[in-house]
């Protein structure tokens, strides 16, 4: 089995920055990514798309190309299309490429698996034609595909970014149905100091709103009672705003109310997580280098907590420095010295966070959906069913899973975990930490029995 100093999972900004830093310091590195080209989600397919669509996607996106170039220039062992399905202590990483399972081992693991869209269960959200805003971005970035007649629903800067991109591409959204209200902005003003320190972000935001206004995209603020209507696909979004009930016909609905750390791999390793009230999600407990409470496993990027793409790079660099120090490639003082500018940059990136989190909070109706709303998409379990299980003594998601199959489907709780925890916590009058989260075990992604069986044969052959 190939043995490395460091295995990185995820070739987004955190992973790519860590790989470059580690390689420069003489570590042997493999970076595994399930996508076929490096960039993660934020810089998805940047090597192909920056040229084609750079003007629509913006300068921030193009920056990703410097990171992908960094991977190539150092001849880092980059394994694209590698779907990691198990990480065991030692560390032994099992993955599959093109239907063939393989393993490699390393003394250190960096999880850089980024974020997922915060689940946004609304009536009708499982209909064909409903997608996450992130999906809309990916369609554009990777494939140049645009929705002709789309409504954007939710809150957060990403919604504005997508609107801008659609406007520039010639397919403006039919409407923006925004769930944050004036009260949220007022409450966010408490954090204005931080926001002003991050003034480039604010300025960018203001410019985006201006561009949206000039394109005459209808915006509805403080929307409530949102439901997606349609028989076999999305046909309209109904909602109330400013006291009026409205219905906007559409073919596509993009949902977004924030992103949350993707904790699947971390959970499968038993890493301790804690509830982050400000960001309304679970985040892994890490030290200032990104080291988790499982020795040798680091987490960097949005998977550690939502701080954005630039912060992810700095965090990736910090983790790599610490690992290099642990392996004796640099001294303690040298490590601290190299880390200092990264820490400063990281702090700078985090400055506007508190303001943004407060100004664009998650949509309350989606955090506590109505009884008839599906919360587990894979097994079609409703919010009402989860509340019923609480009434039957289910204190935590694993018992609820046993009762109703929520979390047992293919996505393994990626899109229902937070909702199930929130529903149980509310029903039982306990905190999210007390309630807990789904137990995550391999396979992190599906793997065929044939591939698994082949590994057994290899082991037997090796033993003979």
């Amino acid at each position, binding site marked *: 089995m190939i043995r490395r100093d460091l295995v990185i999972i995820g070739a987004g900004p955190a992973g790519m920055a860590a790989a470059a830093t580690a390689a420069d310091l003489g570590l042997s590195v493999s970076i595994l990514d*399930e996508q*076929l080209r490096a960039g993660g*989600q934020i810089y998805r397919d940047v090597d192909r798309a920056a040229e*084609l*669509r750079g003007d629509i996607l913006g300068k921030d996106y193009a920056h990703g190309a410097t990171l992908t170039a960094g991977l190539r220039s150092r001849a880092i062992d980059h394994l694209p299309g590698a*779907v990691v399905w198990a990480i065991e202590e030692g560390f032994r990483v099992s993955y599959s490429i093109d*239907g063939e399972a393989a393993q490699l081992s390393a003394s250190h693991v960096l999880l850089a698996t980024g974020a*997922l*869209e915060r689940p946004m269960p609304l009536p009708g959200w*499982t*209909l*064909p*034609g*409903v*997608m*996450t805003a*992130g*999906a809309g971005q*990916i*369609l554009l970035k*990777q*494939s*140049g*595909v*645009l*929705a*002709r*007649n789309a409504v954007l629903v939710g809150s957060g800067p990403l919604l504005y970014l997508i609107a801008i991109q659609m406007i520039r*591409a010639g*397919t403006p959204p039919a409407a923006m149905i925004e769930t944050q209200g004036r009260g949220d902005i007022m409450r966010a003003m408490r954090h204005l100091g931080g926001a002003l320190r991050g003034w480039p972000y604010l300025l960018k935001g203001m410019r985006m709103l201006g561009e949206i206004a000039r394109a005459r995209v209808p915006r509805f603020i403080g929307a409530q009672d949102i439901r997606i209507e349609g028989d*076999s*696909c999305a046909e309209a979004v109904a909602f109330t705003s400013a006291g009026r009930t409205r219905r906007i016909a559409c*073919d*596509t609905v993009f949902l977004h109310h924030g992103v949350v750390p*993707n904790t699947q791999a971390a959970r499968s390793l038993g890493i301790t997580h804690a509830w982050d009230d400000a960001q309304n999600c679970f985040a892994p407990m890490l030290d200032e280098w990104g080291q988790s409470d499982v020795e040798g496993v680091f987490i960097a990027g949005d998977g550690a907590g939502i701080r954005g793409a630039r912060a992810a790079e700095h965090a990736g660099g910090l983790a790599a420095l610490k690992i290099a120090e642990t392996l004796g490639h640099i001294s303690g003082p040298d490590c601290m010295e190299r880390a200092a500018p990264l820490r400063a940059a990281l702090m700078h990136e985090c400055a506007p966070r508190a303001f943004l989190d407060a100004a664009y909070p998650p949509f309350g109706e989606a955090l506590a959906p109505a009884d008839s709303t599906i919360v587990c*998409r*894979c*097994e*079609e*379990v409703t919010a009402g*069913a989860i509340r019923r299980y609480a009434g039957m003594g289910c204190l935590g998601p694993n018992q609820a899973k046993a009762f*109703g199959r929520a979390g047992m*489907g*293919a*996505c393994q709780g*990626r*899109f229902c975990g937070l909702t199930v925890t929130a529903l149980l916590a509310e029903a039982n009058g306990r905190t999210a930490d007390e309630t807990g989260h789904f137990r995550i075990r391999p396979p992190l*992604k599906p793997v*065929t029995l044939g591939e698994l069986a082949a590994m057994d044969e290899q082991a037997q052959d090796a033993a003979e």
Partner: protein
Amino acid sequence: MKTASPFLETDAGPRVDVMFEDVPLRLPEGANLAAALLAAGVQVFRHTKTTGAPRAAFCMMGACFDCLVEIDGVVRQACMIEVSDGLEISRPESAEVHNDPA
């Protein structure tokens, strides 16, 4: 399938022939399969095994498993596959729908 797709394709490039549920389609070579199917007007990728409800691509990043299709007897996420010539794609074979009262 609708004939007019709700999506606009802006990339021009060579196309190849594939089949989706026995219907021939010409999709951009090397494109993301889920994106290409959506752009070609495919609205329903699969039906859930629990209630037979229609589903299509949702997250486009390999996390939601709603874009499952069957190719060569193996069920995979369309958003993790690239278009190649001659692909024969079908909806995952549905087992009997189980309607146990929950």
